């Protein structure tokens, strides 16, 4: 209907003088944007179907394609931007909730970029990581306060069971179902090679990946998909997902079209039926209830696995984290409001939750003030863009970070934000066999290893510059940070001084 018409947001710009009509664009577009016109012997495109994933652009052998933002415009209006107008039209047509995926794309402040790092000059030496050993290894879990010695005065190793990471970065929870088999295979292989961990997300663990268990964190979410004895025993740690940064307060919904074959078997949910994880855990309405689940999981795994509790960063996050630290959890994972998702209501994704930087600083400070910081480790997540963000997160008080969007991008994701359609042209967020085979784990795992290796090099460089040779010495070391363009309140929550102070 004319009243529903929306001009395409992006246009496929084809340079016909460079196009050799190889038709790779047509073959590779799952959205059927490109079509061959035999009469004219040329390719045409339907811009309205384009999601701007760059698959055709990347594979075009003669660089004949690019995607441009349409210059079609509504009458300029500073109060009603284009997206707001179009969303009204969409909802007036459908009567439905708007769906979106990946992280919050709105222009909220990014506090990582408003913090700067220190470096040594004259009075304290910097360290050259190419000449001197730098320690990036971190141990996640409770630490013992007391040094114990035997009768001979030798140190007794009284360290509780910890997760040991070669570098303070892990792949965050993304379920098998939301992601393809090959995406999971790539993360599992990369985590094993790197000596870090990847997280199964809430969709269970495919039987083929039990072999990577020593580098796997298994998740228990409100839907309890794929949770059974062997699953809990398979991983190195168990994560209870209470919330997710992209959609705090709501559950998950894997459409029946994605719940097929191995996904259905792994989730233990009948094939073709929607896999819906409820908003709350129906057995958790208090910290005491959470404590019961934490200890149930510890007992189920014979007290051999650290238990992580993951929450979205929301109001009063410090008080909630304090409760979690007292619930018996070994590690708290904080997921900021920019964290990604395979599908979420747009309004929730774009408007719920708080920035991870503020949440992290508040939680670390609260746990320190209460003297319980050593009882737990803290993980920060929610749009870590680079090694600099990792360093800043650690200086703010994190033990390590989780990355997911960055990991997806290493595997080919171009952030087109249409995961919810299940037709990912890069073979990542899809269960369509012809599409998922586009992700070759030999290539993708190598790229993940490259990314983490590169970041680790950069982390060592930045640590060296600060005169720090062990990542442990950076944790919570907020003196290494200075704010720029932040007001007094922001500085006080972050617990840092302004640049120049």
């Amino acid at each position: 209907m004319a009243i529903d018409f929306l001009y395409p947001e992006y246009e496929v710009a084809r340079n016909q003088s460079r196009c050799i009509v190889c038709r790779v664009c047509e073959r590779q577009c799952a959205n059927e944007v490109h079509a061959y016109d035999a009469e004219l012997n040329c390719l045409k495109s339907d811009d309205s179907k384009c999601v701007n994933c760059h698959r055709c652009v990347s594979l075009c052998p003669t660089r004949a394609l690019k995607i441009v933002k349409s210059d079609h415009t509504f009458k300029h209006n500073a109060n009603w931007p284009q997206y707001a107008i179009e969303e009204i039209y969409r909802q007036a047509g459908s009567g439905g909730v708007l769906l979106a995926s990946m992280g919050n794309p709105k222009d909220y402040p990014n506090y990582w970029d408003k913090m700067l790092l220190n470096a040594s000059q004259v009075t304290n030496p910097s360290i050259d990581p190419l000449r001197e050993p730098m320690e990036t290894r971190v141990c996640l879990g409770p630490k013992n306060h007391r040094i114990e010695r035997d009768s001979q005065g030798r140190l007794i190793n009284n360290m509780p069971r910890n997760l040991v990471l070669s570098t303070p970065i892990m792949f965050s929870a993304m379920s098998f179902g939301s992601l393809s088999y090959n995406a999971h295979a790539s993360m599992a292989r990369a985590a094993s090679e790197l000596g870090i961990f990847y997280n199964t997300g809430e969709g269970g663990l495919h039987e083929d990946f039990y072999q990577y268990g020593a580098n796997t964190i298994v998740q228990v979410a409100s839907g309890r998909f794929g949770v059974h004895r062997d699953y809990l025993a398979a991983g190195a740690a168990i994560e209870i997902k209470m919330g997710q940064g992209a959609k705090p307060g709501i559950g998950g919904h894997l459409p029946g079209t994605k719940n097929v074959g191995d996904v259905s078997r792994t989730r233990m949910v009948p094939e073709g039926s929607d896999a819906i994880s409820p908003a709350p855990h129906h057995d958790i309405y208090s910290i005491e209830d959470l404590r019961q689940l934490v200890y149930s999981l510890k007992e189920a795994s014979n007290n051999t696995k650290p238990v992580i509790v993951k929450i979205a960063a929301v109001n009063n996050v410090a008080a909630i984290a304090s409760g979690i630290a007292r619930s018996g959890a070994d590690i708290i994972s904080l997921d900021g409001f920019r964290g990604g998702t395979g599908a979420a209501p747009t309004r929730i994704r774009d408007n719920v939750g708080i920035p991870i930087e503020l949440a992290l600083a508040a939680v670390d400070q609260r746990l320190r003030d209460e003297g319980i910081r050593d009882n737990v480790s803290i993980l920060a997540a929610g749009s870590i863009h680079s090694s600099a963000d990792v360093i800043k997160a650690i200086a703010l008080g994190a033990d390590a970070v989780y990355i997911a969007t960055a990991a997806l991008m290493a595997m080919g994701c171009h952030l087109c934000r249409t995961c919810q359609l299940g037709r990912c042209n890069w073979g990542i967020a899809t269960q369509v066999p012809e599409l998922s085979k586009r992700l070759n784990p030999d290539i993708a795992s190598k790229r993940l290893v490259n990314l983490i290796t590169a970041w680790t090099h950069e982390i060592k460089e930045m640590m060296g510059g600060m005169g720090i040779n062990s990542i442990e010495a950076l944790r919570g070391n907020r003196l290494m940070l200075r704010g720029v363009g932040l007001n007094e309140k922001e500085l006080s929550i972050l617990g840092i001084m302004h640049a120049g102070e």
Partner: protein
Amino acid sequence: MKRIYVKEDWCLGCHLCEYNCAYANSGNPDMVKALKDVAIRPRIRIEEAGGISFAVSCRHCEEPLCVRNCITGSLRIVDGVITVDQEKCVGCFTCVLSCPYGAVMPTAAGVVQKCELCLRNAAGSPACVTGCPNGAIVYEEKEARECAM
């Protein structure tokens, strides 16, 4: 000897190998000039049916039927690579008929062409392999295989 091997699990059926092959063997440094408005005759072909696809090119058999059956000696094994001397070829196409893989094909000029691993063109190493977006065609050393006979 290094040969081209195909991993059909990763073949997307995008046909880029065919275009990279035609380009590499065109002698033209500009891909657009080489292939624009040209019906390509690549030395590698994608076979596809029922959701499965893979690239087929010369296997460089150790005891090749094409070489054995060549009546002019234009097909020869040089350092393990089966090469064709198009000057000597008379276009009888016995090799075309005898290759079990369909990897020898006629050119527009009426002689035959086949994959020579890009060792005699400007690419220097197989263009289908370097251009494959998903690692579905590899160029590597493996143990000797059985011949085609």
